[in-house]
């Protein structure tokens, strides 16, 4: 929606996508790397936070290390008239990480609402899924919980070019 970044923003993205340097003045270290004044780097990072290019700055835990071993992708067939209103409400549940509307692909795929649910066990995930089902009520015309069994590839999204003007 907001278009792409300018070349300087991209250079900051590339310099930080591996993480922030663990030094007392991390933004100054980034500034040195990209050859800009630290104030400008901090201004641009604040702007990217405000515009949503940066979701947040912080830590991403390994959910397996914290004991969240069960990861269930719950998929729901919700009436088109109510899916947006209900999707927003499901998104506010603290155990739901990602919540999206996606297209149905009939006849092979009927589900239009996706909510990723994390728990310490499958029982816990099932209890949380039951909470979602209760919230959806009769707008829910069917759902499944699809568990992951193996991570086959997890490279993350990376920009490769420092700039593209």
């Amino acid at each position, binding site marked *: 929606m907001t278009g792409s970044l300018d070349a300087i923003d991209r250079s900051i993205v590339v310099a*930080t996508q591996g993480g922030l340097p*663990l030094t*007392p003045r991390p933004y100054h270290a980034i500034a040195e790397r990209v050859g800009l004044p630290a104030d400008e780097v901090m201004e641009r990072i604040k702007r*990217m936070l405000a515009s949503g290019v940066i979701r947040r*700055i912080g830590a991403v835990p*390994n959910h397996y290390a914290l004991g969240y071993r069960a990861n269930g992708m719950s998929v729901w067939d919700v009436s088109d008239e109510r899916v947006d209103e209900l999707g927003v409400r499901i998104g506010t549940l603290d155990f739901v*990480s990602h919540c*999206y509307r996606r297209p149905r692909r009939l006849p092979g795929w009927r589900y239009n609402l996706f909510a990723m649910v994390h728990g310490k066990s499958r029982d816990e995930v099932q209890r949380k899924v039951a909470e979602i089902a209760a919230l959806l009520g009769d707008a829910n015309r069917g759902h499944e919980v699809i568990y*992951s069994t193996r991570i086959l590839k997890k490279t993350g999204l990376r920009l490769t070019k420092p700039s593209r003007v």
Partner: protein
Amino acid sequence: MQPEMDDLDRAVINRLQAGFPVCDRPFASVAEGIGLSEDELIARVAGLLERGILTRFGPLYNADRMGGAFTLAALSVAAPDVNRVTAILDALPEVAHNYEREHPWNLWFVLATDSPDGIGKTIARIEAETGHPVLNLPKEREYFVELKLGA
């Protein structure tokens, strides 16, 4: 198999999931709030990353806003064919994540390309190389994306 964590580690993880300031001495300002020194906090974060308890520390970018195109896609592949198809997906730089899941649609992956027509081309290529139709489920609306797990 769960790595050892003390209460201070948990406090650091919970605090750092809530955000990190943009200022001259951000570690110092966060450290003060949880009763640590700047150096102690930096050492804690380094230790959590080394032990794999944190996978990342820094800005989390919203890929959608950076000018690329993305989709969630799935394949339905019989067990004897999974390794061959996985190798094909592994070799494609456009495939960012790939999970095996318990479902008739058993391989779920994210595609990321520089432009919208790159998605179509990549899907056509995956279908040609694997011989299986791809279920293409691009995001139509995002209600929420954030993961904060209590440590």
